[in-house]
C-alpha cells in the first residue's frame, strides 16, 4: 500500500487517505475542438511500465489535489507536487533523471 507525501499539508499519507484521479497534466478540449482532439482528451491515456504522472487527492486529509511522479513497475515515488502546476517541475524531472536516465513520458524526457 502506497505512501505519498501531500505537498499541501505535509502529511505522508497512506493510500487509504487518498483518492486517485488518473493521469495528470491533461489538456482540456471543449466545444470547438475536433473529434480527434476531444477523443484524445477524454479517452486516451498513457499506460507506461515505468515513469508516470498521476493525480491524487488527499481526500481524508486536507482535501487538496496533488500530482505524484511514480514508477508503475517498482512503485518508487520520485516526488509529489501541487496540482496547480501546468507541467512537471524541473526538480521533479531532475529527480527522475537521476534514478531513471533516459526516461520518457508523453513528449517529456
Amino acid at each position, binding site marked *: 500500500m502506497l505512501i505519498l507525501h501531500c505537498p499541501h499539508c505535509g*502529511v505522508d499519507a*497512506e493510500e*487509504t*487517505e487518498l483518492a486517485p484521479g488518473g493521469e495528470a497534466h491533461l489538456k482540456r478540449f471543449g466545444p470547438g475542438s475536433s473529434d480527434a482532439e476531444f477523443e484524445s482528451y477524454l479517452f486516451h491515456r498513457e499506460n507506461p511500465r515505468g515513469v508516470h504522472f498521476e493525480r491524487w487527492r488527499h481526500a*481524508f486529509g*486536507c*482535501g*487538496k489535489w496533488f500530482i505524484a511522479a511514480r514508477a508503475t513497475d517498482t512503485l518508487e515515488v520520485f516526488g509529489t507536487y501541487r496540482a496547480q502546476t501546468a507541467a512537471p517541475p524541473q526538480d521533479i524531472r531532475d529527480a527522475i533523471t537521476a534514478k531513471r536516465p533516459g526516461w520518457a513520458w508523453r513528449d517529456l524526457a
Partner: protein
Amino acid sequence: MSEPVSALDGAACEGFARVAEQGPRGMITLRGDLASVAVKNAATGVAGVDFPGQRECHVVGERGLAWMSPDELMVMLPHAEVPAAVATMTGALSGEHSLVADVSDARALFRIEGPGAREVLAKLAPVDLSPAAFAPGMIRRTRLAQVPAAFWMAGAETFELVCFRSVAQYVFDLLKGAAAPGGEVGYF
C-alpha cells in the same frame, strides 16, 4: 431559539479511556489567503489564540484555531457566540476574497481521555500516534475507520475529535469499541 442539541446529547462511556460526546461547540470555517493580514486578524480576533502554522491547532478551553488546509481554518469558540463572530469576521473580510461559514452544527465533537487515549485512536486511524510524532499543538485530518475525522490534543492525555454530525453514533460506537476494557495494547 431552542436550546441547541448536540448529535448524541452528551453520550459517554468508560473503557480503558473515557469517551464522551461534548455539548455544542461553535465552529466556523474560514477560507481565504492564510498569509493575508486581514484573514489573520479576523481569525485571531474572534478566537483569541495564536494563529496556527501548517497542521497546528491552538486551543484554550472552547476557543481555538486549527489549520485545516493551506486555505482553510477552523475557528472554535462558544456555540452562542457564533452568529456574532460570523458577522464580525464577514465584516472584517468584506474587501477580501474569503468564505466564512458557521459549521458548528455540521459536526460532532468527542473527547477521548486517559492514558490509553492514544491507543484508542491508533486502532482506528492510519496515523502515527506515538508521543514523538503527535503532540499537543498539532491537528491531524484523517480517516477514522470509514469516515473523515480530525483530532488534536487538549492536554497530555486528552484528545478532541470532530466528525460529521450524521455519523456521530458510528464514531461513538467505534471509539467505545476501541476503548473497551481488555483492549489495552500497551504499545505507547
